[in-house]
């Protein structure tokens, strides 16, 4: 699903997690163009060539040629996501991707005074 921001108002999107919507609001505020899950990268195939595993980074910033993946999972639960990103880089070393972990996102929310959002990340709400 490729969707562009429509600055200055963030349009409604079926984001998988509320932190993604907040992230797009920040990008919109600073005039950064983004796309939401614009591309799915196959990572593993079976013997018949069928895709067994794939990965869709959350965002692509075309002006920066940068993919962004957000996760609010606790560090001990990010193994699968880390492995997918490592595999993506193995297959596509030309791709720039940055993972914003739980602590990164919490710090980002605090930086912008979004205490409630930071608390949500700290708490035990459903993790993405």
């Amino acid at each position, binding site marked *: 699903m490729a969707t562009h921001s429509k600055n200055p108002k963030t349009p409604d999107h079926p984001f998988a997690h509320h932190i993604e919507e907040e992230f797009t609001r920040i990008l919109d*505020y*600073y005039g*950064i163009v983004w796309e939401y899950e614009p591309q799915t990268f196959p990572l593993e195939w079976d013997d018949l060539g069928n895709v067994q595993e794939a990965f869709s980074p959350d965002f692509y910033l075309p002006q920066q040629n*940068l993919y962004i993946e957000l996760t609010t999972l606790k560090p001990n639960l990010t193994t699968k996501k880390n492995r997918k990103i490592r595999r993506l880089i193995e297959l596509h070393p030309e791709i720039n991707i*940055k993972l914003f972990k739980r602590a990164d996102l919490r710090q*980002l929310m605090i930086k*912008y*005074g979004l205490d409630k959002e*930071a*608390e949500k990340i700290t708490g035990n709400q459903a993790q993405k």
Partner: protein
Amino acid sequence: MASFSNLFSPDLIEGISDVLVSAEQIEQRVSELGRAISVDYAGKNPLLVGVLKGVLIFMADILRAITVPVEVDFIAVSTYSPETRDKGLVRLLKDLETPLNGRHVLFIEDVVDTGLTLNYLLSNLRTRSPASLEVCTLFNKSRHRLVDLPIKYTGFDLPDRFVVGYGLDHRERYRNLPFVALLTPQVVHSGRKET
């Protein structure tokens, strides 16, 4: 903490855990940056531009470390916050008073983190046709960088932690500390409003 706890009011250093960059280290590095800028900008009468408010302390020190003629001006922009996020785009709160056309401009930053604000400001300043536009930051936190920007002068690379002091604040507090320090997680995540 014992080394500085007797120098400051307890309520100023409450929540400080470790000093990351000492006042002496900052002084030495600012002096080195000042010398480099003085060589590079000799005869160019550069205009130093800073974005309020965090840069105030670094600007005051780097100005005095530069040994060639310079001019200075300040700009202020709105920051994303719960109060501003529904008001559209970032906007200028205070514009420069100095025309930039044909000037050698050195943008002075206290810290570059995501690069979002700096990217906005550099884009804005480029439209004013400066002869050159470079960036000097005392602190660089690249872990959260969303916009890759060319930085000509960097003082220190900082880890991916919430730091305060030497102009850097947490809810407008701690700017006046002469060093850069880590805050305890309890304070960072407290959500309290400082008075």
